[in-house]
């Protein structure tokens, strides 16, 4: 398990591994927002939590199609299936590696981008908290989508189509928590709902992902 985690993280950092792509994408999307809606500070401040959540979600989505497809193409998945590692564990670890290399940097970068979008001072803590709590769910749900589309050539677009509707509850509760935090309201309810979604998906989705992966490889 640890070997797989270390390997995936190592691969992400090596040339062509795609580490930082999600982060760069997040930055660019955030920079483009004022160009599209105008530079009014008040407007930017009020949409900042939502924009940052959406940007993080799309940045997460960006690297999903490499998550399992590369291992499928070079035969690693076949070998992993015949290895002593339970497939449920393997997909959980791969989702964790995805979160460490994609989700975590996004969480850390979000406050900096919050400054660019004039996020109210009260919102920073809640934005980071909601992203830290919600992005693991994005990685785990995304892994399920990647498992569904693993054998499909050019499955990237289909992957987005399948995963985005599944992201709706996470996005709603995550962005709502960040928004309430920024407005100085009590964000406890959406945060708790978000935590519920994250724990449930982290606990249950790997079983669905592994089942789907077995069906797809057959």
């Amino acid at each position, binding site marked *: 398990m640890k070997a797989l985690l270390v390997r995936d993280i190592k691969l992400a950092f090596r040339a062509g591994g795609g580490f930082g792509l999600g982060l760069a994408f997040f930055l660019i999307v955030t920079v483009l927002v004022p160009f599209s809606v105008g530079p009014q500070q008040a407007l930017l401040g009020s949409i900042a939590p939502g924009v940052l959540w959406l940007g993080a979600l799309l940045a997460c989505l960006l690297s999903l199609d490499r998550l399992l497809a590369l291992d499928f193409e070079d035969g690693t998945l076949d070998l992993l299936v015949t290895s002593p590692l339970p497939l449920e564990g393997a997909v959980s670890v791969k989702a964790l590696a995805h979160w460490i290399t994609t989700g975590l940097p996004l969480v850390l970068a979000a406050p900096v981008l919050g400054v660019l979008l004039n996020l109210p001072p009260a919102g920073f803590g809640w934005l980071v908290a909601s992203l830290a709590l919600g992005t693991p769910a994005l990685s785990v749900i995304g892994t*399920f989508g990647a498992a*569904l*589309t693993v*054998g*499909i050539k050019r*499955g990237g677009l*289909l992957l987005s*189509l*399948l995963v*985005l*509707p*599944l992201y*709706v*509850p996470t996005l*709603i*509760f995550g962005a*709502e928590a960040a928004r309430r935090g920024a407005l100085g309201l009590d964000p406890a*309810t*959406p945060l708790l*709902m978000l935590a519920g*979604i994250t724990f449930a998906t982290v606990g249950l*989705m790997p079983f*669905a992902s592994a*089942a*789907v992966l077995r*069906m*797809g490889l*057959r």
Partner: protein
Amino acid sequence: MSIWQYANPVKFLSLSAKVQPVLWVAAGFCVVVGLIWGFFGTPDDFRQGSTVKIIYLHVPAALMAINAWFMMLITSLIWLVRRHHVSVLAAKAAAPVGMVMTVIALVTGAIWGQPMWGTWWAWDPRLTSFLILFLFYLGYIALWEAIEDPDTAADLTSVLCLVGSVFAVLSRYAVQFWNQGLHQGTSVPVATGGRTVSDVFFYPLVMCMVGFGLLFLALVLYRTGTEIRLRRTAALRARAGGNV
């Protein structure tokens, strides 16, 4: 004798051939009579005027949009547990019908909403939920199209339907939490435990709902038959190819 014998594709085809004519006639009768009765046989609403009559399309379509997904959920489960081809092909056949019903519900809703609420679209929980349902249908159909091996496609789409159902319910509550809406409560009597519309409007509405249900059934039977024949052709061709 058990119900599962109709899970055999050939038996299913012969039964469906017998039932279909009756279904089509009954569905046509109910829809036509229900709509004519609704459009011309009922008075205008004192507040909503004649726009209220779109209810006879909107409510049955919305009802079937949800029921179609529910049916797909059940037939997908049957496929995963008992591996009956007819079951999963029925789910595949129902998806586009359900998607069209969703679109009808959304479009008629917009047409109804414009004079009532003064806007074509509002991010009301019910409308938003239907939009999300539409996306789920889209993903389900796209996944079927993308996978070459029919059994793998059946497996993966079935799991997607199951997981999607959970997330659809979750989205429903998330959306409700996110925005309290404009939409009136449901008009479907079983859901409310009583009637919310008066008798004059209610009977033609029931007629339309029954008609849409029968129409859905007939369409699904017809489309399932097509899917079965496609698979049968493929199976025969594959074996003929082996002889050459």
